[in-house]
């Protein structure tokens, strides 16, 4: 029932990390280690879903959401995710709009006008947190098989479903209030959610309740969880909100605070551990210093090694003596793959997770053993006697390091972030608060683009009709009828028809075999005299005629350069055949007076003709 599809490879790698057992991280534990599904304890949501389903066959999905503080900074700093904007029908709780990349919009949302018209009431919410718990009907699975290009559950599937109203599938939301739900998809949220678990927001999923086979820990004052068989030195200090796993030993004068220590870890003397997640069977020798890091199973830290904030050590990495691992490093036993196909890179940049994409790097520490033995000797990446490779990270990710790491966000970044948010907040105040400028502009350009495409298409259609008429010798009336129906179906004005038809004629003349300019003029003359009548019904006024001249001008510049020297002759021809009146020509010349020099080429060319026209009209007067 739960439709979870692996996203990019980079995401998989993060999930692999989260999949490893860690007693304190019970969610991660029971959720992922053995792939035992958690029975969803959301009976209310489930009932709602079933009820809706009974009434409406198209209600395929119920999405669980939770309220959170409507501040951009909090969301980013707590879970490392972008701001989320949803539009929900307040009555039916139907999800109408979903935008999880709202950061890029700088606080503005683009809503379709039709969207607003269709839904009488919409509540736009930016204070909701997506728990990534979806209750789905079997149709969803078949949707996934049909659309195998769905890569991202939210970005592709949900949005696709919302936009595509052919099937009429609907998504509903269920808000949970006192319960807790969240998703870990990067180290930042791993840290936040682990701390929430230790602070018991997930009760009764807390470390002192025996859930899996692991023995339960005892909760002591100040939120210290202690499992059984711990050997702790008298002089060691275990600070608040710490979990110590079964059978771990802690040496003299060691200080541990706000950390999770897994089963069977050996921590030496004079070690300081702050805000770290140490998984099972990790050995930390004397005098090490660890701050805000993640150490996977079987990691060994030789004496005096130092981890700066944000470091992630993969399975069985060995950090050499007195080596300082720089901040935000990711260290693995496997060397970083040199070649990455571009597709993967794209995905990676898209997913923004702080880990390099590779195939099954961290999946199984044991299987990599034989392979890695050979390579260790070569790698001194990680200090004297160390084993492992520091993975370099692409530039884009480097900037994002702080956002997705377990380490606290540096104060400076935090200020920048807050500043950015305030800047964003000011933005809508300056403009119309309801309809921000950005989206108007966007829609305007869009419509322009649309009409351009439309008219080109229309021109092609008209030309095809005309040519067919020429070859099959269709009556003029019939052509006019056909062009008229084309005009209606494409929603075009009369002048468009005129220019399109005219263009077709000139094209015909141009395409008829000719040897010299005089031949071309003769061809044109033939075509115009044969088909000129067609233009009549579309040339209702001066403006339409000017349009035709402009079209011709455009043609001379673009598709029919052969006409360029003959411009005056053709113009004269049109005048003679009563297709274009002298007023139109004069108006056109007047309009062009203020134009650029390049635009005036044809006006200058026909200067004499215009002059002659002027004199003629004066004479008439």
């Amino acid at each position, binding site marked *: 029932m739960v439709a979870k599809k692996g996203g990019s490879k980079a995401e998989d790698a993060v999930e692999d990390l989260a999949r490893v057992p860690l007693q304190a991280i019970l969610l991660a534990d029971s959720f992922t280690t053995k792939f035992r599904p958690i029975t969803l304890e959301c009976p209310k949501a489930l009932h709602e879903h079933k009820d809706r389903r009974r009434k409406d066959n198209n209600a395929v999905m119920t999405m669980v959401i939770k309220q959170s503080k409507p501040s951009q900074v909090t969301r980013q700093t707590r879970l490392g995710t972008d701001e989320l904007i949803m539009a929900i029908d307040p009555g039916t709780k139907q999800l109408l709009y979903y935008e999880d990349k709202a950061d890029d919009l700088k606080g503005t949302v683009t809503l379709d006008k039709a969207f607003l018209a269709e839904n009488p009431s919409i509540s736009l919410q930016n204070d909701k947190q997506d728990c990534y718990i979806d209750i789905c009907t079997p149709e969803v699975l078949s949707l996934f098989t049909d659309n195998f290009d769905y890569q991202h559950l939210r970005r592709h599937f949900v949005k696709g479903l919302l936009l595509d109203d052919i099937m009429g599938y609907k998504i509903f939301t269920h808000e949970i209030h006192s319960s807790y739900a969240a998703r870990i998809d990067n180290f930042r949220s791993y840290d936040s959610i682990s701390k929430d678990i230790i602070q018991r927001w997930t009760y*009764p999923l807390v470390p002192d309740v025996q859930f899996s086979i692991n023995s339960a820990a005892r*909760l002591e004052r100040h939120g210290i969880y202690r499992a059984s068989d711990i050997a702790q030195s008298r002089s060691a200090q275990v600070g608040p909100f710490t979990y110590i796993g079964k059978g771990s030993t802690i040496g003299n004068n060691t200080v541990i605070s706000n950390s999770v220590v897994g089963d069977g870890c050996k921590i030496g003397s004079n070690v300081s551990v702050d805000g770290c997640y140490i998984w099972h069977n990790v050995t930390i020798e004397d005098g090490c210093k660890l701050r805000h890091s993640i150490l996977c199973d079987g990691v060994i830290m030789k004496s005096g090694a130092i981890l700066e904030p944000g470091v992630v050590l993969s399975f069985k990495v060995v950090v050499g003596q007195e080596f300082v691992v720089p901040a935000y490093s990711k260290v693995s036993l496997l060397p970083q793959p040199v070649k990455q196909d571009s597709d993967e890179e794209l995905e990676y940049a898209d997913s923004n997770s702080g880990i390099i994409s590779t195939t099954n790097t961290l999946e199984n520490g044991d299987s990599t053993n034989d392979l890695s033995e050979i390579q260790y000797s070569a790698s001194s990446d990680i200090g004297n006697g160390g084993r492992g490779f520091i993975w370099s990270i692409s530039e884009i990710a480097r900037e994002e390091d702080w956002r997705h790491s377990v380490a606290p966000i540096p104060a400076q970044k935090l200020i920048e972030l807050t500043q950015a948010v305030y800047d964003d907040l000011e933005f809508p105040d300056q403009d119309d608060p309801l309809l921000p400028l950005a989206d108007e502009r966007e829609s305007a350009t869009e419509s322009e683009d649309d009409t351009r495409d439309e008219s080109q298409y229309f021109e092609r259609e008209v030309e095809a009709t005309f040519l067919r008429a020429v070859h099959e010798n269709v009556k003029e009336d019939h052509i006019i009828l056909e062009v008229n129906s084309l005009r209606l179906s494409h929603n075009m004005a009369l002048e468009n028809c005129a220019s399109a038809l005219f263009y077709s004629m000139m094209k015909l003349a141009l395409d008829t075999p000719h040897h010299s300019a005089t031949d071309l003029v003769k061809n044109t003359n033939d075509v115009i005299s044969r088909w000129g009548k067609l233009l009549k019904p579309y040339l209702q006024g001066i403006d339409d005629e000017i349009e035709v001249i402009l079209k011709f001008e455009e043609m001379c510049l673009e598709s029919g350069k052969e006409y360029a020297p003959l411009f005056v002759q053709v113009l004269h021809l049109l005048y003679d055949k009563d297709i274009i009146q002298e007023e139109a020509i004069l108006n056109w010349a007047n309009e062009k007076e203020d134009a650029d020099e390049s635009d005036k080429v044809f006006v200058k060319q026909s200067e004499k003709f215009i002059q002659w026209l002027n004199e003629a009209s004066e004479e008439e007067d």
Partner: protein
Amino acid sequence: MLDTHALVHDFLNKLKRRKIEGSKGTAKLTAELLRTVISQQRIPNTNQAGALVDAIKAIGEQLVAANPVELAVGNVVRRVLHIIREEDLSLMTSAIGGPSLSVISDDENDVDRDDYPVLSAAAVAASARNALRAPSLQTLLEDMSHSAAVHHSSSSVDDSEEKTKSTDKNSRSRKLKHNVIETVNELIQDIAACHEQIAEQAVEHIHHNEIILTLGSSRTVIEFLCAAKEKKRSFRVFVAEGAPRYEGHILAKELIGRGLQTTVITDSAVFAMISRVNMVIVGAHAVMANGGVIAPVGLNMVALAAQRHAVPFVVLAGIHKLCPLYPHKPEVLLNELRAPSELLDFGEFSNCMDSSTGTGFPLLHVANPAFDYVPPKLVSLFITDNGGHNPSYMYRLIADYYSADDLVLQRKPAS
């Protein structure tokens, strides 16, 4: 066997997820589960009681580990163990003559066995010793090993003998099982009826025109007050709302429904109101062996206020809440810290729970303990199914209901 496993597993899961709450419901479900286990349990020919005890202990250990804070589970397990031991003992004592009689009748057939009379004599002696001695646990255990030895050797000795013996044993084992199940049924009824038993005594404690104060909500307290009301006592009740679960509101609704004059006050107003109160009547989560009480949070404060103004502090507790253990660091070890979401809305406070800013851990901590420990000196009286008792008398009650062997349910580790 399979379905008992499934049942036990199911119950364990419910306990772990804190799906079952309230000591009475838990106690009843535990007793029913154990009854099923006993009836499904295959009993070997020898040492029947021992096998049953082991089986129940094994399950009891898991149940207690599933929710160590719900003491009623452990209490019921110990009660059932006690019942098994008692029933076995009574069967033993009633069957003293049995073996010797059968030996005499069998003797005619098997005269050529030299060793047999010696053994049977030993058996007779053992049972005679039993009959002479007062029934205590030690003798019970001793006896069990003896009789086991007897049965074992005799069965290896003779086939025809075995036949008669085994039928005899079968009937005995069936009898033991039957008796145990009967008594467990009685226990279940007792648990179900504890409210009425306690409520019957209401008129003896609540007098005319008195003001009673209570905190939170307890089924026992509701029944107790209503029983007094039905007996035409007119009195008033102050209900402290019992933050953060505010069960006092539910209690107030219920009392008003029964026509009682009720005043709701905040928990913090208890001290101000206590001088007008004649008696404090509260429910309990568990009563420890020293007479101390594990009670819903806030009650220690009420007890202190009552002591300050010399107001009697009366605790109502069904007998299944009686725990044979002594509290050690009860504020921490016998407490449960519940979800902070009962106090604060996570959505509103999610920015305070931010671990990524500043020092790397959230500055906001929320503690939501479920229970208070009220020391025995603050309790004036316990009212249980079988009458009122002083805190100092609790250990005697416990000796009646539990056998000293079962106090520790954890089996020794395999090593």
